[in-house]
């Protein structure tokens, strides 16, 4: 693979996807500390939002330590060069949240839908484009649809006004060939001015390999997370990816030692648990389940005595999609009840 001089725009997720791994409890000081470190290391884009996007604050996904307004208001004024993005999932957040983010200085809005339901994003993508924001269409759980379906949905988002389309491996399920196929088709068929992006999770240990495949197939933007801080087994660890890109002489613009230090000195010390491919995170990737289900499944295991792995496999079998966190406790209750019935019948 030859990526020499290839331009790669990295986008840090530690302060948004990483919110899942921190149960949305990152403090304002930690946010500012990590964001300023990333800014200094040359990170061009940093996402700051509740893990489930603007308006994600809820019983279902978790109440954060601070509101989106507070996080964005604390981080954005401290940025020297980095731009700040916010995530928005239609059905959870609304255009009111989008306007709030714009007013606070967010430059990039990423509107995320399940990979087959892009038409719920029309009003949000339309407004962001009208406000002349950098507008990204973010197709989640992209392993659940064919390349042709992903392209069809990407074209919808493009027609609403998105200037960048992401193929998002929310479950960390994809292998490099699948990434290549999907990204290459998007690159071949979308408007040449539309940028392509890839967002990976490390649940099968493939995040770096998949990100390289994406760049090779035509993606310019690549999401990752410093120290991998993200849902499931985390996102593509950015300090590792930068080192790999460096060796391949790709054009990434990041200071390797500085980002290594942000990972080691600022992010790792605040982790609640090591971000690694444990058996439950591996099950997410193996069964194709939304990565942020991980901690919910572990909590359900602790409360109802049903193994997280069994819950996740069943959720995968049922075809659950991003945002259906409520099904985890529901399923655990049902499985616990079935188990009790079986015991009584013996």
């Amino acid at each position, binding site marked *: 693979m030859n990526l020499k001089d290839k331009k790669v725009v990295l986008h840090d997720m530690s302060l948004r996807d990483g919110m899942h791994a921190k149960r949305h409890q990152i403090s304002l000081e930690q946010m500012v500390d990590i964001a300023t470190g990333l800014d200094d290391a040359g990170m061009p884009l940093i996402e700051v939002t509740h893990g489930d996007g603007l308006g994600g604050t809820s*019983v279902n996904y978790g109440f954060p330590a601070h509101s989106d307004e507070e996080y964005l208001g604390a981080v954005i004024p401290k940025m020297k060069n980095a731009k700040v993005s916010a995530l928005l999932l*239609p059905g959870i957040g609304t255009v009111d949240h989008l306007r709030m983010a714009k007013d606070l200085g967010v430059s990039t809005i990423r509107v995320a839908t*399940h990979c087959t*339901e892009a*038409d719920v994003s029309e009003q949000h993508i339309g407004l962001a484009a009208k406000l002349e924001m950098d507008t990204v269409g973010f197709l989640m759980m992209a392993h659940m649809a064919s390349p042709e379906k992903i392209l069809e949905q990407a074209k919808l988002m493009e027609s609403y006004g998105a200037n960048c389309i992401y193929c998002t491996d929310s479950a960390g399920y994809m292998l490099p060939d699948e990434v290549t196929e999907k990204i290459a088709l998007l690159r071949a068929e979308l408007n040449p001015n539309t940028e392509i992006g890839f967002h990976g999770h490390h649940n099968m240990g493939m995040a770096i390999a998949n990100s390289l495949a994406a760049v090779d197939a035509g993606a310019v933007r690549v999401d990752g997370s410093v120290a991998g801080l993200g849902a499931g087994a985390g996102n593509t660890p950015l300090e590792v990816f930068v080192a790999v890109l460096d060796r391949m002489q790709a054009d990434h613009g990041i200071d390797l030692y500085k980002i290594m230090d942000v990972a080691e000195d600022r992010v790792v010390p605040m982790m609640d648990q090591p971000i690694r491919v444990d058996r439950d995170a591996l099950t997410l990737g193996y069964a194709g389940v939304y990565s942020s289900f991980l901690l919910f499944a572990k909590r359900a295991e602790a409360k109802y005595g049903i193994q997280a792995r069994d819950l996740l496999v069943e959720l995968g079998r049922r075809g659950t999609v991003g945002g259906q966190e409520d099904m985890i406790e529901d399923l655990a209750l049902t499985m616990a009840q079935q188990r009790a019935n079986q015991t009584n019948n013996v």
Partner: protein
Amino acid sequence: MSKKLKAAIIGPGNIGTDLLIKMFRSEWIEPVWMVGIDPTSDGLKRAEEMGLKTTSEGVDGLLPHVIEDDIRVAFDATSAYVHAENSRKLNELGVIMVDLTPAAIGPYCVPPVNLKQHAKELEMNVNMVTCGGQATIPMVAAVSQVQDVEYGEIIATVSSRSAGPGTRKNIDEFTRTTAGAVEKVGGADKGKAIIIINPAEPPLIMRDTVHCLTKDTPDEAAITESVHNMVKEVQKYVPGYRLVNGPVFDGNRVSVFLEVEGLGDYLPKYAGNLDIMTAAGLRTAEMFAEEAANGSITLPERG
């Protein structure tokens, strides 16, 4: 004189047709007119075959016949954009409007919670909130009738096939309207609504989760009883409304997990989200008819 109120349905799409089939079974409402805007639409043809009078000229095509055919109630299954005009024109002629769009000009109506009150006050326009609202607000109310609910949150998951283009194009209407009704009708101090669209095949039956945060420690026995009673109330007009799990108590959190299977009249059974809207709309009109028949309200006078 028949006790039945004569009705018009505006919008011969999936919702309008399902409503029509339910209406043929009603003891209180008699469908007379189906109103559309496209003379070639399948929905209008279907209605005509079922014996209804039809017009393809919108509400204006119906207006000259309202008095002569004694139309007393109309169901608007079109869109929020045209509802206000439809409602104004028909209200002027003394027709009660049941609004199945997200326009919400009139007060929100969730039958087991506040329909009686609307009927007694002869509200001339009532809004049926949203599918997620119809499925979940009875549960929020079941808890808030026992004790103060500081926060009510609902998550509605519907199958991709049952989410129409109107819902998709304006999904923010769903979250806003539903959250507002969780407060105003459900009785929560603050409301939050989330909608998830799931494309699994075969399509999944509508699922709803309701989380309430009570101000004080929840009275588990009283809330459990209230929830079970409320489920029975909803089952009177939506037999496929089922409590799957709960109420579950965790500190001040009360959670209820529901499934809504439709009757499969015109819409498939998995589309419980659409069925609960048509069933609630019809139930609403029936209550007005019952109250008029027993003399507790007097319908607008007609010469």
